[in-house]
């Protein structure tokens, strides 16, 4: 088990490295900050000097090695634009983003999974019908559309919730709902499909033959077996949510990670882009590791098989 975790961690680190190489090259293909950040009337000598200060004058592999050296010490360079450590800027914005995507995820799981279970247990019932509508609506439009709709209705018309800005539950509710609905719909469908399949299994028949209460049959024997693909899907939704958050953060003026990356790319702030990629790649590796551990925790065949 331990060697399994170490192997997965090793593979994860390799992925981070690969990601850094790719982003390192791509971000330098987009443009040269010496052109963007200096006024048009600056001379070529000015620009060279500027490049030397930023460190972008050196050959690519020298820059990359310097970057790796910094990475080992937890230093991801200084933001070209703000002159402060890039990692600090990224982490500062990561908090609000995780708060938003975390709430959206909680909403997606908290609504999608129970609805999926109910509709699988009683096909054609009220939950099934409502769930179907919920899923179709959620997958019919992109999150920013719901964001605008929600603002118009709940904030502008009803004055129930703020139109935007960072804050507590009343601030996060609308953006999280708009962001999480799509994932909630997917989770509902997947939970329903898996539960419906598991409910036909012989061990479910046996659980009933044993005279277990229906709640034990469903929540213990069926849900545990239906949960593995659902967990994988939920984890994969983290990426979707972080991506979707870019537009949601813009609509709700949420000081998040998405907006930071977009700004950093358009400003050719290489170090901030690199730091953001390292941090988000590390985040995904962590999430995947948690998923692997959950798998092993739930399924003894995985635990003993490796």
């Amino acid at each position: 088990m331990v060697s399994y975790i170490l192997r997965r961690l090793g593979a994860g680190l390799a992925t981070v490295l690969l990601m850094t190489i790719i982003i390192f090259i791509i971000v330098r293909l987009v443009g040269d900050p010496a052109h963007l950040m200096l006024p048009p009337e600056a001379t070529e000598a000015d620009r060279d000097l500027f490049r030397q200060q930023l460190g972008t004058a050196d050959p690519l592999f020298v820059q990359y090695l310097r970057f790796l050296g910094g990475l080992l010490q937890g230093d991801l360079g200084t933001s070209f634009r703000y002159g402060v450590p890039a990692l600090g800027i990224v982490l500062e914005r990561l908090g609000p983003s995780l708060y938003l995507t975390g709430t959206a995820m909680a909403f997606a799981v908290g609504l999608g999974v129970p609805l999926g279970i109910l509709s699988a247990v009683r096909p054609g019932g009220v939950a099934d019908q409502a769930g179907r509508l919920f899923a179709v609506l959620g997958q019919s439009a992109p999150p920013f559309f719901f964001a605008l709709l929600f603002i118009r209705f709940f904030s502008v018309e009803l004055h129930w919730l703020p139109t935007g800005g960072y804050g507590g539950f009343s601030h996060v509710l609308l953006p999280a709902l708009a962001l999480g609905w799509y994932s909630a719909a997917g989770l509902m469908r997947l939970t329903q499909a898996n539960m419906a399949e598991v409910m036909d299994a012989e061990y479910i028949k046996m659980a009933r033959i044993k005279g277990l209460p229906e709640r034990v049959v469903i929540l213990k024997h069926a849900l545990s077996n239906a949960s593995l693909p659902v967990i994988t899907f939920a984890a994969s939704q983290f990426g979707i949510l972080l991506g979707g958050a870019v537009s949601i953060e813009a609509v709700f003026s949420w000081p998040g990670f998405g907006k930071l990356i977009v700004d950093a790319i358009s400003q050719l702030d290489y170090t901030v882009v690199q730091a953001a990629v390292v941090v988000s790649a590390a985040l995904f590796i962590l999430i995947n590791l948690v998923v692997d551990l959950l798998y092993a925790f739930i399924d003894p065949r995985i635990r003993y098989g490796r």
Partner: protein
Amino acid sequence: MSEILRVENLTTRLSARDGSAAAVDGVSFSVHAGRTLGLVGESGSGKSLTCLSILRLLPPALSQAGGSVWFKGENLFDKSPRAMTAIRGGQIGMILQDPMTSINPLFTIGDQVGEVFRYHRGVSGRRNLWARAVETLRRVHIPAAEERVGSYPHQFSGGMRQRIAIGMNVGCEPDLLIADEPTTALDVTIRLQILSLLREIQAARGMAMILVTHDLHLVSRFCDEVAVMYGGRIVEQGPVARVFNDPAHPYTKGLIGAVPKIARHAERLAVIPGQPPLAGEHGAGCRFAPRCAKAQPRCFSHYPDDRRFEDDRRAVACWVPEGLPS
């Protein structure tokens, strides 16, 4: 000798869009304490549905259309869902065909055997539940039960798993155990061990048993009575020795004739020419008539009533039974 179960006129219908068809059609039989009824018949004749109907656990596509199931004097069809939950696993157990799929792969066997004590006997606490599980696993002869109680299903062989499944179903000392082809999925060498185990458990408390099987040799070795099903109906029933030595229904006769006398373990039954009918796809007459060498015109138009004979101990549904005046 007390009657534990009496099934009367049990009818189970398959609800399809274009009307419904009877998959089990007026089945009646009874089982007594300490005795075993063998239920035989070709694939699709309705054996499993009969068993599941007794427990009221029919799959969603099927529904109970009539009849009654008297268990220790009470009609199970009148029971509340809650009362049925208490009866299942507590007073009636059932074992399924394939032990590789009938046990949940994600929980320890101690947990899954212990569950019945938790929900039927109110035992609580992991230690107490495991103690009961160990006790039960010993009863079904799982070697080193104390050490293996924390193991998972995939760590056991098919035969061991079937023992565990039996343990789950006899832990609460049921009065009736239904075994739906308990050995079909197992190695030939293990089959007799499983059946001896069932017999041992039966002998200890005089439990009644229904054994569904395709293997007529098992019936003659392990059953007291036999009921032969065909097309959702019981065509003949009675004491095993009498029925096998002197079959009255042409179908029973065909079955017995189809089993090679020398082979110890019979092959599957479908050696009679022709195919059994699908649920609902038969005429008003005897379901077996199209395959029957003795069939007469009335066999195709009217279903024969049950005829009782040999002091009411046997019954046959045939217009032209063997050895009886037609």
